[in-house]
Each structure stands twice: as C-alpha cells, then as structure tokens.
C-alpha cells in the first residue's frame, strides 16, 4: 500500500472544484456583495443606512440553516450508507452552522440595537429560534467531546444532528405559538419590501455567503482529513 500524499492539496481534492478556485470565487463574490450592499442598494426610508445589515443577517441565517441541513444529510448517510467520511463531513457542517449561527445572533443584536435601542428582542422569531438552535448545537459539541473517537461517537453525533433538523421547524412553530400567550410586543425587525435592486443585492449576498460557507467547509474538511492522514502515517512508521 503506497502511503497517500499528506498535503492539503491532495486531501482537499474531494471534488472537481479545487480549493484555490473556490477561495478565489468566494473572495470575488463576497467583495461584490459588500459593494452592492453598501453602494448599490437603495437606502431605507425608515431605518437609514444601518438597515443594510439586513442583507447579511438574513443571508447568514439561510446559510446557517443550509449548514444544519447538510449536517443532517451527512448524518443520514452515515447511518444509512455507513460512509465513514460522512461523520467528519457532518461535524464540519455543524461547526460551520454554529459559526454562522453566532453571526446571526451578533448581526441581529446589532440591528436590534440600531433599530430599537435594545440589544435583544424576544419578539424577533428568527433571533429566538437561533438562540435555541445555538444552545442545541453547542450541546452537540459537548456530546462529541465527551466521547472517544469511534463508531459510537459517530453514531450518537449523527442521531443528534438528525434531531436538530427536526427541531428547527418544531421550534419555529413553538416560537410563533408562544407569541399568543404573552401579548405581542410592537418591536420587530422588518426587512424592506423586496423589489428591484433590493432583490438583486439580497441574492448576491446570499449566494456569496453560501459559497463562502462551502469554501470554509471544504477547507476545514481538508484540514481534518490531513490530520487523519498524518495520524495514519505516524502509525505506519511506528
């Protein structure tokens, strides 16, 4: 058995799209998105310049959902097809999802402060949902770190990731229902009415962030696979 190459290039080549090409694409897209958000999209009549954070906030949120869905898909593939790489992919997806989820909370908080003068709004469904998901997926890491690497850790992580994806719609419904128990408060985070340049700007920022997330996912995946290869080589040499 010839020793597999232990470079990031060799390891990162899991699909036709190479890492450098992906990184370059993300850079271009994100730059374009920033340009559009700050210079092209019209200023909102009510909230002014600060409302532009909305483009990133929503795009990041959708990207986070995509990461969690990806994690659940890889988890399903692990349990169903027994693909050994799926555990690592699922973990990296959750990791990316939590990073983007944290950004949702931060951007949402900033937006709330700018719009209403408060750092947190319980009346924002999106924010509350992400708080719940943040707690849920942080527990994912606690679960993972208190288990030794192996098939059991992969199985339990996968099952938990699947629970997560079921929890997302259920929590969302719960948060909507909760509003009727307590009298609804006026404060909300409103996006603009979609149309024209606003739609274009949003689409660009959404695509940019999805590609960025995918790039980060591929980079982290390659890094983890590299770790694994190095470990294997160390074993062979020992």
């Amino acid at each position, binding site marked *: 058995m010839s020793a597999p190459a232990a470079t990031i290039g060799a390891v990162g080549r899991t699909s036709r799209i190479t890492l450098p090409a992906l990184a370059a694409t993300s850079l271009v897209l994100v730059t374009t998105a920033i340009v559009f958000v700050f210079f092209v999209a019209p200023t909102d009549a009510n909230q002014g310049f600060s409302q532009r954070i909305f483009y990133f906030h929503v795009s990041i949120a959708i990207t986070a959902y995509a990461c969690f869905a990806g994690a659940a898909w890889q988890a399903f593939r692990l349990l169903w097809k027994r693909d050994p790489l799926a555990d690592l992919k699922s973990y990296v997806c959750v990791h990316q999802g939590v990073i983007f989820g944290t950004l949702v909370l931060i951007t949402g908080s900033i937006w709330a402060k700018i719009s209403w003068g408060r750092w947190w709004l319980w009346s924002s469904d999106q924010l509350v949902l992400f708080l719940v998901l943040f707690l849920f997926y942080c527990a994912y890491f606690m679960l993972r770190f208190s288990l030794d690497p192996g098939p059991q850790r992969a199985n339990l992580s996968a099952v*938990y990731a699947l629970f997560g994806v079921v929890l997302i719609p259920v929590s969302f419904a719960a948060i909507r229902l909760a509003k009727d128990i307590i009298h609804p408060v006026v404060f909300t985070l409103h996006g603009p009415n979609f149309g024209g340049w606003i739609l274009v700007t949003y689409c660009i920022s959404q695509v940019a962030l999805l590609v960025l997330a995918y790039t980060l996912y591929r980079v982290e995946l390659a890094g983890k696979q590299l770790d694994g290869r190095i470990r294997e080589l160390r074993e062979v040499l020992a």
Partner: protein
Amino acid sequence: MRYFRDVGALARKDLLLELRARDTLPAMVLFVAAVFVVFHFALPESPSRLETVGLLWVAILFTALLGLGRAFVPEREQRTLDGLVLAPCDRSAIWLAKSLATLAFLAAAEVVALPLYAIFFHRVGGATIAAVVLADIGICAVGTFLGAMAVATRARDLLLPLLFLPLAIPIVVGAVGASVVDSPGRYLGFLALYDALFAVVCWASFEYVVAE
C-alpha cells in the same frame, strides 16, 4: 405482538428495580415540593396565573430531569445494557420500555405535585391536566432517549440537561399555552404533534444509540 411482549418484560423490570431501590420516586416528590416553596420566596406577592403556571412547568421539567438522570443508571453501573443489546429483541423496545417506566414515575410524582400546586398557588383546570399528560409523553420519550446517549459519555449527568432543555422548549410552550389561554386546542394539538414526531424519530434511531 412479540415486540410489545418484549416491551412489557423490560418495563416490568424497570418498575421492579425502582420498587426495590425506592430512591428515585421519593426524591422526585420531595424535590417538586421543595421547588414550590422556593418559588414562593422567589415570586412577588400574589403572582398572576401566568407566572405561576410558567413556574409549574419549570418545576415539572426539572423534576422530570431528576428522574431521567436516574433512568439508565442500573444499565450503566452494572453494564447490563450489553445484555439487553445482545438479546434478539428490537433495540427500540429498550427505549420504549424505559420511557413507559419513567412516564409512570413522573405521573406518580405529579399526582402529588399538582394537588400541592393547587393548594399553594392556583387551581388546576382540565386543560392543564390534558397538557400534563401530553407533555409527559414528550418529556419521557425524548428524555429517555437522550438519557441513553448521555450515559454512554464521560460527562453523563452533566450532559443530560444540556441535551434535553433545548428540545424541551417546544413542550414548555405548548404546555404553558394550553394551561393559560381560553381555547387550548391549538396548543394541545401542537403537543400531540411534537409527541408523535419525536416518538417516531426516537423509535427509529434508538438502534444507533445503543448498538455500535
């Protein structure tokens, strides 16, 4: 049918174990009573119905956590889970039996807790009782499942609340809603939906939690 006989045999074992040990159920009852007393000192004078209902559900949730943390202790300490996993029965029967037994303990604790709550705070309506029944099912189904996961880790008792509470949030919403609003149908329906959805997910995936 053999599935349900397996579930029966396993549930019987769990109930027997608790009857012999006699530690979990008394602890849960004592805990919930103590929590109510703490609430009295933590709440303002003559709290509103919404406030106390909320606290009732917090009390139930944490009492349940107490019981759930103990659910897989015999299997963990004596490694008997291996024995159950080796048996030819469907692994999900282990989960279902354990959930039913835990449900019985939680219900027994609530038989004391709810009258106590009615005496200390506000009377308990029919909608609240219905919510208790539905919420208990969800709590025990999901909690038992997560308890089995937690028991396999190094962190064990630390991990169960962390895993359980985010998943319990929808239960709290449904239960509090049903206890408070005038037409609780929507919230009870939501609880039933939660129960059905998560029961299926738990049932289908327990195999992967206990077997490698």
